[in-house]
């Protein structure tokens, strides 16, 4: 297959068919038609975004709040820049700190070595032990210096990373619960009937209602010493809340997928007299994968949405906490910073959704993927 075809297939899988005309145009295939579709599906969306920015601009400067005017797009962009600067600055500071620390530790080590040398050449045993003690002290100082960590306040990007970690932890918990339950629901009407009331009642519950319960229970059960714990309590609470809110779409979709296996495929299984195990793993699961992944995709986007709320309340050091802190600060940059967060949250959500679309396309067997 040609490179061109590969790129086109890749764009299809990535869910970006709008960019196909560019590739086709570059390969010189029917230029007028390609330009036409570029105008329609690339230029028009760009113009629409431009119109949105202009409208924002017009409206923003007319609204006066207690923190000053609502920031214009330009101010928000500037704020994003300053968040990046702050991040770089903080990283630089940390770097400087560790360089200095290294130097300091080295000087201690040199001193220790010096004392050890002197101790070897010492005249009296008393003096020797004294020098050895000094050397040991210097060595201790050196390791102590080395182990000291830079007390860094998390930058905006650290907060993004925490949020991503939290949402993936929650998503994994949700998948680990929802997929097996969904399979059982799909396989057995009775199991589905048993689960149905629970699903229907818990599905619409807001994360804000789950969070306090989760926090209290996690607080009671997770009593590991915070210094030794692998995860922070706030992280666990947020992740579990995300899981509780996002497991439902996967559960329902998996159940649907397993229950709606093609009747013809079931007939094949019946004629072949496949055992339960083979029937589930060779026929039902593969055929329900596309449904399952559609569910996972919805789950992840729900999880990301829920996460921000959960982090705000749980004070998990992520984007939600960032928004909350900015709100509490009430400086003149508050609104602009929160808006940067809004765009960040939106873009990451979009990116996560794209990734799930790609996965979904890769598991659906009748798509173009086989090539």
């Amino acid at each position: 297959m040609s490179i061109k075809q590969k790129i086109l297939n890749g764009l299809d899988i990535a869910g970006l068919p709008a960019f196909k005309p560019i590739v086709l145009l570059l390969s010189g295939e029917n230029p007028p038609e390609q330009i036409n579709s570029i105008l329609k599906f690339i230029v028009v969306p760009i113009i629409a975004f431009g119109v949105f920015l202009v409208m924002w601009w017009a409206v923003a400067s007319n609204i006066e709040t207690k923190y000053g005017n609502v920031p214009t797009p330009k101010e928000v962009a500037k704020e994003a820049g300053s968040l990046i600067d702050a991040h770089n600055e903080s990283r630089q500071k940390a770097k400087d700190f560790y360089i200095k620390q290294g130097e300091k530790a080295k000087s201690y080590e040199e001193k220790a070595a010096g004392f050890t040398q002197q101790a070897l050449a010492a005249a009296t045993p008393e003096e020797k032990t004294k020098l050895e003690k000094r050397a040991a002290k210097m060595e201790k100082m050196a390791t102590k210096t080395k182990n000291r960590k830079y007390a860094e306040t998390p930058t905006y990007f650290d907060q993004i990373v925490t949020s991503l970690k939290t949402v993936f932890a929650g998503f994994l918990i949700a998948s680990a619960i929802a997929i097996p339950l969904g399979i059982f629901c799909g396989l057995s009407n009775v199991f589905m009937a048993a689960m149905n009331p629970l699903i229907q009642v818990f599905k619409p519950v807001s994360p804000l209602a789950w969070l306090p319960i989760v926090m209290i229970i996690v607080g009671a059960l997770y009593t590991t010493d915070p210094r030794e714990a692998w995860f922070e309590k706030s992280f666990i609470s947020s992740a579990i809340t995300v899981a509780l809110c996002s497991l439902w779409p996967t559960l329902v979709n998996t159940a649907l997928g397993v229950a709606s296996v093609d009747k013809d495929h079931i007939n094949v299984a019946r004629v072949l007299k496949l055992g339960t195990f083979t029937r589930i793993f060779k026929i039902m699961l593969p055929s329900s994968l596309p449904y399952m992944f559609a569910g996972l995709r919805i789950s992840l986007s729900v999880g990301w949405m829920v996460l921000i709320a959960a982090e705000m309340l749980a004070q998990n050091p992520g984007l939600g906490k960032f928004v909350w802190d900015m709100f509490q600060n009430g400086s003149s940059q508050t609104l602009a910073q929160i808006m940067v967060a809004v765009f960040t949250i939106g873009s990451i959500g979009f990116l996560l959704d794209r990734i799930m679309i790609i996965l979904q396309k890769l598991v659906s067997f009748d798509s173009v993927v086989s090539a």
Partner: protein
Amino acid sequence: MSEFIDLVNLVKIYKTPKGDAVIVDGFNLKMNQGEFVSIIGHSGCGKTTVLSMTAGLLEKSGGNVVVDKKEVAGPGPDRAVVFQAPNLLPWMSTLNNVMLGVNQVYPHASKKERHQICEYFLNIVGLGDSMHKMPNELSGGMQQRVGIARALALKPKMLLLDEPFGKLDSLTRMDLQDILIKILDKNQMTTMMVTHDVDEAIYLSDRIVMMTNGPAAKVGEILEIPFEKPRTRSEILEDPRYYELRGRLLSFLEEQDHKKKEFKPKAKIEKPADEPDDNSEIKKSA
């Protein structure tokens, strides 16, 4: 030869709110070992219903299916089915689709032996070099050949073909008929085929069972096809008896058609899902 397959008084009744809808009412057929019997009739007359009951995929309302002196209930690999659609599992390679059945029938064979069995049957349908392709990379005709290989690899006592070539274009259909007749000449498999293609039925069958129109369909007439086996298409087409047989089949079907117009069933009959719903024409072109 003794009767290898005995279908005794098969009945299928669907309960509807307006009363019972009798689809098949007392279908009797005895088949010898190695015999090829086609069931022909108008769409919706219950041909596929009979086949599904024989396969065990559809529950009988009455009657018995006796295979090799044993009454059978429910589906099983001893009665392999080739469906109208290939029904391959799209997430498995051609080889694995065949292997799925082979694993069931030869549980004690080594992996290598099972692989050889699959390879053998894929070779005889002419797909030896497409073993590792996925079903969606194959044409419709090739997929159906995999379906045939999958059925044959089960070493069934009986082969059930449910309009196996119905969805293919006429050239591919002829191709597959030739492949099938060659395989059956070699393997002598007891075969029941449902079709509404008159020429296909004559070319492949030893006997053709003509079914009356539903409701309450049963065996109308049975036509013996006297041509010697192995057959070739051209030999048969040159034989003067061919047109006589064809004429008898068509006149039976036309007769049924007239009866159908006179008889309007009161309750709308609920057809089983696997019965094609269109009242497609009997193929009259040669």
